[in-house]
């Protein structure tokens, strides 16, 4: 029989299967190598890096680079390590994620279940705002933050990330709620539930997955942001990515690669952790943000 009996209809010869596995493994190596080598080398003393082979395991294992990156490395002018900036990023990301998700949920609810004239236009405008190059808002944003007297503060960054996160969170919740049966809303209306009661009692309890998607996506984006951090934070209020860049690209002194690597992994750790724990939602967020406009 030439026709596969199982649920897939495509068959290939065993030779090409070997080839396929080979290619897939090679690419797995390609994706793992840079990060893996970085991890290995963050546990080496500096001499082993400058004088040795990057792919060899440490002859002498050490966590000194990690300790240095965390608490003593020179960031800009202060030898504070990355710790305060890590905390900055958390203080910035958590409220910004929470606020933009809540607002996005309400917007999605209104745009799908309480359609009014012009709703599609508003959604279109919101949607386009997800994709603007943020360079176009840098100058006026700097002015506004100055006027509000929150320039160079974490509060300012929370505002910025919240504002430019609404578009995406609204998109998520709108697409999710569009598939949510409108009859449930009507039934609740007849039962006497009001606008917010329907949202709290009917919509939100069924929104777990999309809340996860929205939070994860927002967290990843905000944590990984560099442009806003570099533009609107100054000195001690900089987020992790900016501090890491300062650490790595500081022109003074010896380049402590192992410390840089430890710092880079620290900067990557939260989003990577989220990815490992909730990869399913992460992928869903990527898809929802791209395939379905």
């Amino acid at each position, binding site marked *: 029989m030439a026709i596969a009996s199982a649920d897939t209809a495509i068959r290939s010869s065993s030779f090409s299967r070997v080839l396929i596995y080979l290619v897939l493994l090679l690419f797995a190596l390609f994706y793992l190598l840079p990060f893996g080598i970085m991890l290995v080398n963050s546990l080496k003393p500096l001499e082993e890096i400058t004088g040795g082979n990057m792919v060899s395991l440490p002859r002498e294992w050490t966590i000194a680079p990690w300790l240095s990156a965390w608490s003593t490395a020179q960031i800009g002018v202060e030898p504070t390590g990355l710790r305060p900036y890590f905390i900055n990023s958390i203080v910035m990301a958590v409220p910004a994620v929470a606020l933009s998700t809540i607002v996005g949920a309400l917007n999605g609810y209104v745009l799908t279940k309480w359609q009014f004239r012009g709703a599609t236009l508003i959604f279109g405008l919101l949607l386009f705002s997800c994709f603007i190059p943020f360079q176009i808002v840098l100058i006026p944003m700097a002015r506004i933050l100055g006027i509000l007297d929150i320039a160079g503060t974490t509060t300012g960054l929370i505002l910025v990330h919240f504002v430019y996160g609404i578009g995406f969170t609204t998109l998520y919740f709108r697409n999710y709620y569009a598939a949510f049966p409108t009859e449930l809303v*009507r039934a609740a*209306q*007849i039962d*006497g*539930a009001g606008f917010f*009661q329907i949202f709290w*009692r*009917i919509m939100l309890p069924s929104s777990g997955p999309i809340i996860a998607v929205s939070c994860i996506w927002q967290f990843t984006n905000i944590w990984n942001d560099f442009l806003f951090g570099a533009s609107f934070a100054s000195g001690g209020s900089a987020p992790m990515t900016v501090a890491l860049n300062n650490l790595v690209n500081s022109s003074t002194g010896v380049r402590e690669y192992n410390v840089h690597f430890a710092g880079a992994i620290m900067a990557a750790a939260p989003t990577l952790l989220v990815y490992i724990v909730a990869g399913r939602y992460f992928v869903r967020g990527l898809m929802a943000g791209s395939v379905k406009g």
Partner: protein
Amino acid sequence: MGFLDINNVTKSYGAVEVLHKVDIEVQEGEFLVLVGPSGCGKSTLLNMIAGLEGITSGEIAIRDRVVNGVHPSKRNIAMVFQSYALYPNMTVGQNITFGLEMHGVPKADRDRAMADVAKLLQIENLLDRKPGQLSGGQRQRVAMGRALVRNPDVFLFDEPLSNLDAKLRVDMRTEIKKLHQKLGTTIVYVTHDQIEAMTLSTRIAVMYDGYVQQLGTPKEIYDNPANLFVASFMGSPSMNVLPARLRDLNGEIHAEITGAEDQSLHLRIENAPESYRAYLDAEVMLGIRPEAITDPEGADRNARNIQSLHNTVSVTEPAGADTFVSTTLSGKDCIARMRADADVHPGQAFDFAVNMDKAVLFDPKTEERIG
């Protein structure tokens, strides 16, 4: 004034009017079915009664209170949805009492009401389950329970049986009818299924294209359809509609049709109303229900005017209880409904017995019934 009054109600979306001057008066305890094909406006009308859609013009009144603009929850109505619309995150018990909770009914009263309804619908053992764990029939019961517990003035049903499989649908249909007989509630029920309409209703409004085509009891609708649409929509298989000419033969009016071999056939019409005379020698549409065409032994014994019709059988379709027999009349397939053991075969020349008491005539231009 009725219990539920729909007075000259219209609905427009922008410039498009989708519901034209609907006028229906529903009495207390009536079971009104709105039936029609999809897009006829029946669901829109139901949603307007519920308050889920605005009324463009006209008035809807429940118990003499005009409810235009009144919030759905303040109309004292309850609705059963096509998808049941059970809240997925709540248990069956919470689903049933949610409406009472929203109306501020104390917990003890809610629980008592829930127990009564659960007993009535025999769903006491399901109260702690989530809707996701229920079968289609059980969900249907819960949805009805949620409506019943409110003790509303009017029940609205939006195609409540269309998501059930065929057998369950028949069972639930009987159950709804029993419930109506027992509780004597006022019901407005939307369906596209004409059998549901016939079996359940005390009155039917047949809708098409935003107009109420005919409003009447099931028997009126079935026996005396107001126009060709109602005639063909109600009944399965639908009414045979044949082009015919009215002839005056010896002072009696006959419908002249052509048989399978182009031979002229005449069917005498007894007690023809005077209005038929206006159509003499003109073309009309002759409507005959399949069950009014039988084999001679199977003809209705109470009928006064059985006409014999000699024609060739083209196809027979045994359906268990009946056998459907097709024959070509006036160039159209005409279906006869016979006993299962009627001796009919394809190609055979057969003497059909046509019960002309049941025949109706339509004007081919206006499509309205003559008479």
